[in-house]
């Protein structure tokens, strides 16, 4: 039976690569097309990098999900970092606390079909994304 779920602990840059490879395998299992795989895998890469950049460590949970006959890939990036003070501000284009890249979260949102974020100062950050086949 094909693997349908994987959890990647993210502490170093090489873990971003691991998360990306795992996401690609599971996205293929879920039956996503090439362009869709590119999109969700890029989103996973961005989320994993954010964990390292802002929280230092965390994890990315990847699973194949279904609704009716449709399958998709779900990725949840979780960290216990400083959290985001203003989600409204973080979701605005051109806003980035590090000022190096900007666009991180709004860009990630554009790559996926479903996007949920939960964060507060001192409570860490949890971002859920889904891409349907």
């Amino acid at each position, binding site marked *: 039976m094909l693997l349908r779920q994987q959890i990647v602990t993210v502490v*170093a*840059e*090489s873990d*971003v*690569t691991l998360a*990306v*490879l795992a996401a*690609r395998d599971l996205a293929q299992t879920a039956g996503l097309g*090439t*362009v869709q*795989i*590119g*999109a969700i*895998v*890029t989103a996973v*890469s*961005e989320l994993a*990098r954010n964990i390292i950049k802002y929280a230092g460590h965390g994890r990315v949970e990847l699973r194949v999900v279904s609704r009716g006959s449709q399958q998709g890939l779900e990725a949840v990036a979780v960290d216990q970092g400083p959290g985001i003070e203003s989600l409204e501000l973080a979701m605005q*284009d051109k806003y980035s606390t590090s000022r190096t*890249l*900007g*666009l*991180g979260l*709004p*860009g*990630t949102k*554009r*790559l996926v079909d479903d996007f949920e974020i939960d964060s507060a100062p001192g409570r860490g950050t949890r971002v859920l994304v889904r891409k349907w086949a």
Partner: protein
Amino acid sequence: MFDSSIPRVPLQRTQGCLLGTLPRELVPGTLEQFELDLLAKVRQSALAGVVIDLSALELMDLTEFAKLRRSLRMTGMLGPKVIVVGLRPGVVAGLVALGADAAGLRTALNVELGLEALLQKPAGTTAGSDESASLPDVLRRALAGAR
């Protein structure tokens, strides 16, 4: 300073240009090592141009894109013209969604067209060698090519 665990990007000379072929996936250190190798090679050889082939690459996030652009800007400052070829639709779709800044990045569909664009006389460039090709244009072209 040589770390054998980091895959090296092959750099070969063809038609007076240097062709660099990036691998299917980037691991930490690949782009840093590539930058060192590329700058060293460009400095020791008289090159008309540099073609960077990304046709195998399946994913590039903003961080990697920024690193690559930095390397290519440095290469361009040494003299040769630089062109990126073979970007995949999935990669381009991701970069466009993330808002990657591709201003001034020269692109072509494949190695052949890239070499052609570099070896042309500077004036009156044609389609496929458009200096101002934007990433959405690249996406359109790549999608058209994928059909």
